[in-house]
C-alpha cells in the first residue's frame, strides 16, 4: 500500500513509472562470469563504506609525536601523527582494526575482481563494437583502482609504505626532461617532503573515488543502454537477450552476491592480519624493511624494477635512467595496448560488425593465445617482485633466481601461448566441455524459442 502510494507520488512528479516497469523486467544473462563486474562494484561499495569510517580518524600529518597508545612495544617512540592515528584506529578505536583490515582486503579483492572481469571480456570478445567505449572506461577504472590502492597503502606512514613512496619518487625522477620538476611538484620537494601525506589523502579519498564513481555510473548506464552480451546457445541471437528478469530474480541473486563478498571481506578483516604497521614501525629515512613486497596488484611493477638489467641510455650528456624502463615505459605500453586492443583487433581481423553474441575462448584460438601469453608475462613479473623471498625459500642466491626469471619472463609466455593455441583448437574441433561451462544448475538449460 505504502509502496503503491510512493510509486504514484513519484510518477505524478517524475513520470517514473514507465521507466521503472521496463527496468524491473529487464533481462540479464545468467552465466556466472557476468557477475565478476558486479563483484568489483560491490567491493567499491565496501571500500567507500569502510574507508569513510577510517577517514574520520586518520590524520595526514608528518609532525612527530610520542606514541602513547595501548600498543606497549612502541610506547615512548617518536612517530608521525599519521602513524599514530593509524595505530589508534588499530588498537584504540573499537571495531577499528577489523574495519581497517577489511578495507585493505577489500582493495585486494577489488583489483582481483577487476582483472578477472577484464579477462572475461577479453577472452570472449565482449569489447567488440559497440562496446569499445565501455572497454575504455573499464581500463581507466583499472588504472584508477591501481593508483588508489597504492596511494591508500602509502598513507599510514610506516616503514613499508615509506619505502614504496621513495621508489615511486625515484621512478618519477627518472622521466626524461621533466622528471626532476615533476617529482618536486608531485612530492612537494626532495623526498621525504612533508606535504605528501595530505596530498595523498585528498587524492585517495576525494579525487580518485569521485572519478571512479562517475566512471562506474557511465559504465553501468552504457551497459543498460546497450544491453548485455550473451554466450551463443539455442534461442539466443544477435537481436535478443535471454536470461532472468531484474526483479525479483536477478536482483535477489545480485544482492546475495553483495552480502557474500561482504562476508568474505569481513572474515578476512577479522581473521587475517594485513599490513601490521606496528611490526614494520614508523617511517625513518635511513631505514628499510626487508623483505618488502607491495600489494599484489603493484607486484608486476616491482618485479620489473627487480629483474630489469643494469642498463640505461646516455645521449649527449643526458641520461634515461634505469627505473624509467620498467617503472614508466612498461606500464605506459601496458595501458596503451589495453586501451587500443578493441581497435587493433578490428584492424587485424577486419571485423567491424556489431556483436552481441560472445565468442567462446576456443572460437578465437589466436586471441586466447595472446591473452594467455600476456597474463603469463605479468604473472612472471609478479613472481619476480618476490625474488628475494623465492631465493630464500629455494635456498639459492638471489642473482640466480633473477637470471632464471629474466629468461622465464620471455620464454614462459611463448610456451603458454602456444599451449593455449593448441588446446583451444583441439576444443574447437572436438567440441569438448570448456572451462567456462561450469555447472550452473537449471539456469543453463536451452531456451525453446
Amino acid at each position, binding site marked *: 500500500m505504502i509502496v503503491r502510494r510512493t510509486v504514484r507520488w513519484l510518477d505524478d512528479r517524475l513520470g517514473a513509472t514507465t521507466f521503472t516497469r521496463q527496468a524491473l523486467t529487464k533481462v540479464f544473462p545468467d552465466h556466472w562470469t557476468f557477475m565478476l563486474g558486479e563483484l568489483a562494484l560491490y567491493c567499491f561499495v565496501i571500500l567507500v563504506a569502510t574507508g569513510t569510517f577510517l577517514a574520520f580518524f586518520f590524520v595526514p600529518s608528518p609532525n612527530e609525536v610520542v606514541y602513547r597508545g595501548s600498543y606497549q612495544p612502541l610506547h615512548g617512540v617518536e612517530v608521525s601523527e599519521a602513524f599514530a592515528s593509524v595505530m589508534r584506529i588499530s588498537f584504540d578505536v573499537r571495531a577499528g582494526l577489523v574495519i581497517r583490515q577489511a578495507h585493505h582486503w577489500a582493495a585486494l579483492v577489488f583489483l582481483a575482481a577487476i582483472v578477472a572481469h577484464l579477462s572475461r571480456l577479453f577472452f570472449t570478445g565482449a569489447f567488440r563494437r559497440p562496446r569499445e567505449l565501455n572497454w575504455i572506461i573499464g581500463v581507466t577504472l583499472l588504472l584508477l583502482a591501481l593508483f588508489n590502492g597504492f596511494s591508500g597503502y602509502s598513507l599510514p606512514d610506516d616503514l613499508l609504505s615509506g619505502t614504496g613512496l621513495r621508489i615511486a619518487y625515484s621512478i618519477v625522477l627518472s622521466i626524461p626532461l621533466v622528471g626532476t620538476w615533476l617529482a618536486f611538484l608531485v612530492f612537494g620537494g626532495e623526498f621525504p617532503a612533508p606535504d605528501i601525506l595530505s596530498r595523498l589523502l585528498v587524492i585517495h579519498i576525494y579525487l580518485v573515488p569521485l572519478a571512479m564513481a562517475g566512471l562506474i555510473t557511465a559504465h553501468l548506464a552504457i551497459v543498460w543502454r546497450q544491453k548485455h552480451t550473451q554466450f551463443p546457445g539455442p534461442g539466443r541471437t544477435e537481436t535478443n537477450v*535471454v536470461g532472468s528478469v531484474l526483479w525479483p530474480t536477478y536482483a535477489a541473486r545480485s544482492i546475495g552476491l553483495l552480502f557474500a563478498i561482504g562476508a568474505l571481506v569481513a572474515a578476512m578483516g577479522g581473521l587475517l592480519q594485513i599490513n601490521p604497521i606496528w611490526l614494520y614501525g614508523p617511517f625513518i629515512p635511513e631505514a628499510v624493511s626487508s623483505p618488502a613486497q607491495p600489494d599484489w596488484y603493484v607486484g608486476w611493477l616491482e618485479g620489473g624494477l627487480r629483474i630489469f638489467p643494469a642498463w640505461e641510455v646516455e645521449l649527449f650528456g643526458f641520461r634515461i635512467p634505469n627505473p624509467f624502463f620498467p617503472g614508466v615505459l612498461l606500464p605506459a605500453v601496458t595501458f596503451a595496448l589495453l586501451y587500443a586492443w578493441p581497435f587493433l583487433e578490428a584492424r587485424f581481423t577486419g571485423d567491424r560488425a556489431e556483436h552481441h553474441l560472445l565468442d567462446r575462448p576456443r572460437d578465437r584460438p589466436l586471441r586466447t593465445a595472446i591473452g594467455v601469453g600476456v597474463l603469463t608475462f605479468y604473472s612472471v613479473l609478479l613472481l619476480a617482485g618476490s625474488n628475494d623471498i623465492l631465493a630464500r625459500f629455494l635456498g639459492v642466491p638471489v642473482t640466480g633466481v*633473477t637470471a632464471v626469471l629474466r629468461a622465464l619472463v620471455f620464454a614462459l609466455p611463448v610456451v603458454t601461448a602456444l599451449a593455449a593455441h593448441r588446446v583451444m583448437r583441439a576444443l574447437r574441433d572436438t567440441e569438448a566441455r570448456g572451462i567456462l561451462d561450469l555447472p550452473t544448475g537449471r*539456469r543453463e538449460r536451452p531456451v525453446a524459442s
Partner: protein
Amino acid sequence: MTDRDPRRAVGGVARWFAASTAASIGLAVAYALDANAQVQGVLAAVALAALAAGFVRWSERLMPPGPYVEERHPLAAPPDEDRAADRALAGEGLPRRRFLGRMLGAALAALGVALLFPIRSLGPSPGRSLLRTAWRRGMRLVTPEGQPVAAETLQLGGVLTVFPEGRTDAADSQAILVRVDPAAITPVAGREAWAPDGNVAYSKICTHAGCPVGLYEDRTGQLFCPCHQSVFDALDGARPLTGPATRALPQLPLEVDDEGYLRSGGDFSEPVGPATWDVP
C-alpha cells in the same frame, strides 16, 4: 523451476534470515563487550553470509526462473532522424560562426594556460638541491642519535649509519660507514686518502631507486640494497656488482681530527640518489 514444495523453500530462506539476525545481535553484543577483531570479523561474516545464502536460495527456489527473452533494438538512429540531427547541429543562420568560434577558442586556451600557473606552487624548484647534500668539509660524522663517531668506534667488519653533525634530519645526507682492512681496499684514483684506518663511507641512498642500502656482508665486503637487490663492492669504490643499479654509490671523503673523531673532507664524490635526466 520453483520448488516442488514452496513451504519447505520458504522455511529454508527464513532459517537463513533468522541465522543472520542472530549473528547480527551477536555482533552488536561483541562490540558492546569490546571483543577482539577475530570475533567481530567472524560474527559480521556469519551475518552477511547467512543473508547471502538466504537471498540466493530465495532467488533460486521461489522466484520466477525464466528464461525470459528481451528483444534488442538497434542503437543507431534511423536515417531521417540522422539528417534532422545534422541540421540541428549545423546551427544555420548564425553569422560569423567560424570567426567567433576561433576567438572563443583563443580565450579559453589563454584561460586554461593561466589556470595552470598555480601548479608551480606545489613544490620548490629543484635548483641545485639534488646536486649537493648537507655535508661540508670538517663536519663530524654522528650517529642518527647525534653521537660523534671516532676512527676506532667500529670494529673491523662493523657498519654504522652516519649523518653530518647537527643535520641528522638531512635524509639526503645519510651515509653508511664500514670498517674494513685497509689493505683490502682498492681505492679509486684520487681517493687514496679517503678511508683513514679502513673507515670508508658511502651514500646510503641506492643509485637505482633510492632505498637505503642497509645490509653489509663483511666476508665479501659487499653492500646490499634490500629493495631491488643491487649489490655494491665496498672495497672497490662501491661499484655495482649485480642487480639493476648502474652507478656506484657516491663516496664520502673522510679525515680524522686531532681528537680521533671522523670528519668529512667535503661533500660526496657525486650527486647522491637515483639518476635523473640531467643530474650526472
